[in-house]
């Protein structure tokens, strides 16, 4: 089944690697946004099946973007997976307060990223 994913990440390289990984390996339809604000707008219009959301972004960071997504009835139901290079214990505790589906750690393996996401979301 072809799923639709929105990737929100300000880093061009990570965003493009993730997008091409999900398109090439899994055959999913991918849309990207380079900021939290752009991500909110695209999520509302595009209504993806899931969102892969970077934590550290200038302006609106990942947790703030997530909370805004939750406030909007059009996007509140969309499962969100955080993507972060922060792996310290204090960061993990901060993410634990958020009702996200999973926290995926950078760097990721482009060959298995889609399987990770599918596993978390129960997609076949």
């Amino acid at each position, binding site marked *: 089944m072809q799923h639709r994913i929105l990737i929100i990440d300000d880093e061009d*390289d990570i965003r493009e690697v993730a997008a*091409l990984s999900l398109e090439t390996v899994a055959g999913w339809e991918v849309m990207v946004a380079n900021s939290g604000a752009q991500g909110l707008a695209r999520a509302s219009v595009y209504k993806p099946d899931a969102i892969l959301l970077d934590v550290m972004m200038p302006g609106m960071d990942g947790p703030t973007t997530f909370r805004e997504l939750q406030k909007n009835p059009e996007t509140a139901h969309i499962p969100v997976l955080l993507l972060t290079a922060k792996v310290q214990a204090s960061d993990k505790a901060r993410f634990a307060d958020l009702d996200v589906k999973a926290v995926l750690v950078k*760097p990721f393996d*482009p060959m298995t990223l889609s399987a990770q996401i599918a596993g978390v979301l129960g997609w076949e």
Partner: protein
Amino acid sequence: MAGVMNRLWVQFLPLMEERVAILEAVAAALAEGALTPDQRLEASGEAHKLAGVLGTFGLSEGTLLAREAEVGLSGEPETGPSAARLAEIGAQLRTMLADRKP
């Protein structure tokens, strides 16, 4: 997927080299006692980005080195990495970038 990754490597290599250059500049400024808090913050952010991306391109050791720089630069200056260690990390990262063939 390997072909896609190699294309992206070529596309983003200049960006990664710029990030390493920032770490090298910070090491030099630290050695001269001229490192500003803003430079330190910027370098920590660039190290964070390197840590996130290098392993994705198969450079796991690069991720560890960049993470060491990020953590060191994001803490108190007194307990941060020495100028020599930062310069060493920068040099090792630069070598890794140069040695990885598309």
